[in-house]
């Protein structure tokens, strides 16, 4: 069953002189096992949105249905939602607190009532998925890991709750290119191996184009666009007006098209290379 968001609105400090609307009338749907990306410039309401999705904030209007159940219902709706949706905050490494990595990862499943061998297996499995094998890292202090390792340990802590949906708020922020690649591989692995639905907030259009099946574009608290990467990234002008941009390959193709090359829409570097080769081969045969 999917996550359904219906006309969700949220205002910070409502009723005070510095009240600010963070989200207005946002509706969308995220299917089981799908990969959705959320893009939007800073302050467009992305982080507020994900906090609403697991009931950390209460909306003024609208609601969120997880598996058809209203998460803001009185009888612990948001508690059940948090069992199904794992949220990885921005800079999640700052939430590490236990003496060992394994103990920290065990925190979530322990709260779910897991114990004994089941718990150990769950921790080992999550650490392996996060690329920090339990034999090597399990007994180390989380505070002596490197930045990228800390982040993966924190993500393992969320994975250990075996969420049906995994929401990640800019998980690669501040990582070096290798750390970034490893992290995206990790996310893809979670989707493939566990069949979890992924909701990824990202500022990197290349990643979004490469990985997402659905793209949500936020602007000023509204859902400005919604569609497949191809549909969304076909609207370069509109995206630029919102302070966003195109994937490098799409921007490159757009420029070539402006110079008269008949290139089809492309999203990734591989697409662009293939399309260019075709055009080049075409022009060569004509010349011959």
């Amino acid at each position, binding site marked *: 069953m999917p996550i359904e968001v219906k006309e969700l609105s949220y205002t910070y400090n409502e009723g*005070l*002189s510095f009240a600010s609307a963070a989200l207005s009338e946002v509706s969308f749907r995220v299917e089981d096992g799908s990969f959705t990306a959320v893009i939007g410039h800073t302050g467009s309401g992305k982080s507020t949105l994900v906090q609403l999705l697991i009931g*950390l904030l209460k909306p003024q209007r609208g609601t969120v249905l997880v598996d058809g159940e209203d998460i803001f219902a009185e009888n612990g709706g948001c508690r059940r939602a948090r069992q199904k949706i794992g949220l990885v905050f921005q800079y999640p490494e700052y939430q*590490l607190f236990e003496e060992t990595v394994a103990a920290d990862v065990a925190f979530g499943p322990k709260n779910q009532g897991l114990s004994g061998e089941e718990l150990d297996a769950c921790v080992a499995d999550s650490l392996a998925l996060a690329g920090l094998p339990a034999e090597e890292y399990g007994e180390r202090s989380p505070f002596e890991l490197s930045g990228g390792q800390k982040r993966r340990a924190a993500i393992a802590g*969320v994975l250990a709750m075996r969420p049906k949906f995994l929401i990640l708020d800019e998980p690669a922020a501040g990582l070096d290119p290798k750390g970034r690649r490893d992290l995206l591989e990790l996310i893809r692995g979670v989707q493939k191996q566990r069949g979890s639905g992924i909701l990824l907030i990202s500022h990197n259009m290349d990643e979004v184009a490469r990985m997402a099946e659905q793209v949500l574009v936020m602007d000023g608290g509204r859902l400005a666009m919604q569609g497949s990467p191809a549909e969304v990234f076909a609207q370069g002008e509109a995206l630029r007006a919102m302070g966003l941009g195109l994937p490098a390959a799409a921007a490159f193709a757009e420029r070539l098209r402006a110079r008269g090359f008949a290139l089809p829409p492309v999203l990734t570097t591989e697409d662009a290379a293939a399309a260019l080769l075709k055009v080049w081969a075409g022009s060569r045969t004509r010349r011959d």
Partner: protein
Amino acid sequence: MLKDITLGQYYPCDSPLHRLDPRVKITAALVYIVSLFFVRDFPGFAYVTLCLAVLVALSRVPLSFLFRGMKAIFLIILFTFAANLFLTDGSVLWQLGFLRVTSEGLYRAAFMALRLILLIVGSSLLTLTTKPMALTDGIESLLSPFRRIGLPAHELAMMMSIALRFIPTLMEEADKIMKAQSARGADFESGNVLQRAKALIPLLVPLFVSAFRIAQDLAMAMEARCYRGGEGRTRLHPLKMRGRDRAAWILILLYTLILLVQAGWIVF
């Protein structure tokens, strides 16, 4: 939940109280706090409450915002009230087992609770209407005469301003960590005292680590901009007394005089 603590927070708006010189406001707050301990009876408190009400109205800080900060210290007030209510000797009004309420106890409990509430509302009005920077400048300026006897006025003021400045930052940080741990199924709101205290560990450890990290970053940023203490430092906006500040001095004096006469400390 943590956002409910408004103690030490600034409420941005433009009011006569916001525009006053910080030195006047700090002095007024000190005079006000001391004056609360000179009050002897309820008519005295009525007078103080009235003056405070006028100031609150002038400040344009919404009452709901002002009292949101009270929620956090409600327990302290309740405890003071209960302690005074049950532990004061005198003529017994009502008794149940070892619990005994005396008329003196009731009077004292109400008196103390009122004093505490007035103390908190009055002093939070200072920080609600004064930007932390202005507050520090004011404190530094007020303390500077004591520099000659070796009081590090600038350093004290800087320490205070950093402490004040970090209340909302740490609050935000705590809020963030709390949310992250809630997302992992942490429960901060149920269970007995012991369970709740234990539930705080996942919040306190990361908060402690963050506090050190933030402090280190700040120290580095200050040093990078050549901070070397108060010696020879000039200001972008030097403090200057204006007409309304002089009027405020007179009002403070008037308030004190009336209060002292009412309470019988000054007899004509």
